[in-house]
């Protein structure tokens, strides 16, 4: 693998951001997505749980978290595709002293909708939300979610008690969904002043009450911006869809070989199309050692395995909750990264796949974008 210090995308390029447990990599290709240039490792030796691209208002800004084993978690950005990164003197995202909490990880960095080009969000561990109204220059703590009466009963999953999913609603800037493991899905309809759990119909198989008001171990939620009331969800056990912005959920496993998995991705142009990477429950690897992405084109009523281009030999791979993502080009590119340090990509919506990166540390997140 030949790597560079930074990549040089052009207008219309595809960008794939790869976070690993020991640094980050940035991949760039022209719209054909046949050949990729790779830069990195950025933040070598540090855990990178979250990355994001902000292309609003003419920006070309990449965001990344970094967690040093001893020296804590920081938020960085680059305006030149990784040639230089910010290295803030003071941690930009930090808990107020009155909370008694200290930041462990930044699990999610999310840009606000196009209508609010200065809005940014960070979801963190321990589970809490931060927001910025100046495109990430300064950050503030969302107190109302932290004060939610459910919070003392949220419990950490295997990865810690984290707020890992943030979904903005392009049709309603006051509405935001977040997901917490384990807490479930929460929604605000007033710009973060108040929050309601939105878990009706979502199972929590590990609880005495299998359908509690909250406490579900939601692994990932995704939506297509053109149909914001429709949500797809990979649960710790079960695939679900909501057609009413989370007011209720319907199971949509419908033939996927395992209802366990971590990621969920939605096609950026077709709201009925979604992708999952099912995992065998005990080993938490691809079932039978066969790499398979499953795609639905009818909102989860049926799923088809996608495997053309994957290796024939056994591949016991794991894809974590942020390890599967799409770009926004046409045809759409689909990408996933594994704990085995490989990134596979499809430049035709999942019909065929190729290995585009290998030999990197265990992958925690993959985020794709069009420049």
């Amino acid at each position, binding site marked *: 693998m030949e790597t560079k210090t930074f990549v040089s995308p052009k207008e219309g390029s595809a960008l794939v951001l790869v976070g690993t447990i020991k640094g980050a990599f940035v991949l760039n290709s022209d719209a054909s997505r046949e050949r990729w240039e790779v830069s990195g490792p950025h933040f070598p030796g540090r855990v990178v749980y979250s990355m994001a691209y902000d292309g609003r208002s003419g920006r070309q800004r990449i965001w990344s978290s970094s967690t040093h*084993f*001893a*020296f*804590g978690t920081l938020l960085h950005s680059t305006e030149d595709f990784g040639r230089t990164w910010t290295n803030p*003197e*003071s*941690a930009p995202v930090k*808990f*107020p*002293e009155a909370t008694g909490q200290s930041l462990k990880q930044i699990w999610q960095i999310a840009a606000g909708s196009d209508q609010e080009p200065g809005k940014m969000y960070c979801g963190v561990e321990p589970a809490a939300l931060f927001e910025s109204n100046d495109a990430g220059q300064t950050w503030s703590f969302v107190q109302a979610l932290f004060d939610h009466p459910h919070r003392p009963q949220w419990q950490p999953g295997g990865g810690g008690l984290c707020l890992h999913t943030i979904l903005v609603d392009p049709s309603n800037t006051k509405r935001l969904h977040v997901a917490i493991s384990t807490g479930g899905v929460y929604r605000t309809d007033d710009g973060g002043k108040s929050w309601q759990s939105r878990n009706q119909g979502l199972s929590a198989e590990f609880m005495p009450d299998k359908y509690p008001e909250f406490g579900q171990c939601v692994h990932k939620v995704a939506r297509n911006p053109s149909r914001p009331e429709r949500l797809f969800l990979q649960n710790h056990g079960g695939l679900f869809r909501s057609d009413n912005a989370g007011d209720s959920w319907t199971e949509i496993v419908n033939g996927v070989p395992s209802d366990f998995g971590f990621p969920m991705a939605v096609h950026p142009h077709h709201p009925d199309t979604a992708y999952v990477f099912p995992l065998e429950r005990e080993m938490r690897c691809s079932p039978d050692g066969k790499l398979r992405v499953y795609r639905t084109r009818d909102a989860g009523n049926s799923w088809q395995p996608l495997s053309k281009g994957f290796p024939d030999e056994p591949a016991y791979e794991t894809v974590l909750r942020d390890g599967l993502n799409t770009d926004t080009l046409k045809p759409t590119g689909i990408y996933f990264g594994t704990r085995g340090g490989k990134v596979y990509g499809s430049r035709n919506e999942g019909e065929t796949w190729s290995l585009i990166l290998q030999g990197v540390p265990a992958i925690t997140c993959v985020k794709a974008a069009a420049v």
Partner: protein
Amino acid sequence: MAIIFYIPGPLREHTDGRSQVEIDVEIDADSGTLREVLAGLWQKYPGLRDRIVTEQGDVRQHVNIFVNEENMRDCGGFAATVGHGATITIVPAVSGG
């Protein structure tokens, strides 16, 4: 009161590349506390603070601070007595793989 701080490699980008820095801490006594001398270090090199202590003011779990040759956790924590000419050594734990 002059205090010498030894800075670990990953943090030297915040001390202009220096492995050893001397801070003259203004204290009206023969000795001060570790809290006071660290405040002097944060003031001169502000990039160090959030990397060594959390937002709650606690020393990060995997950071050790030695006052001369004693771990601060064994000699009073932030209230540990620090005299003129003392050395403060900041050491990240070494583990992992």
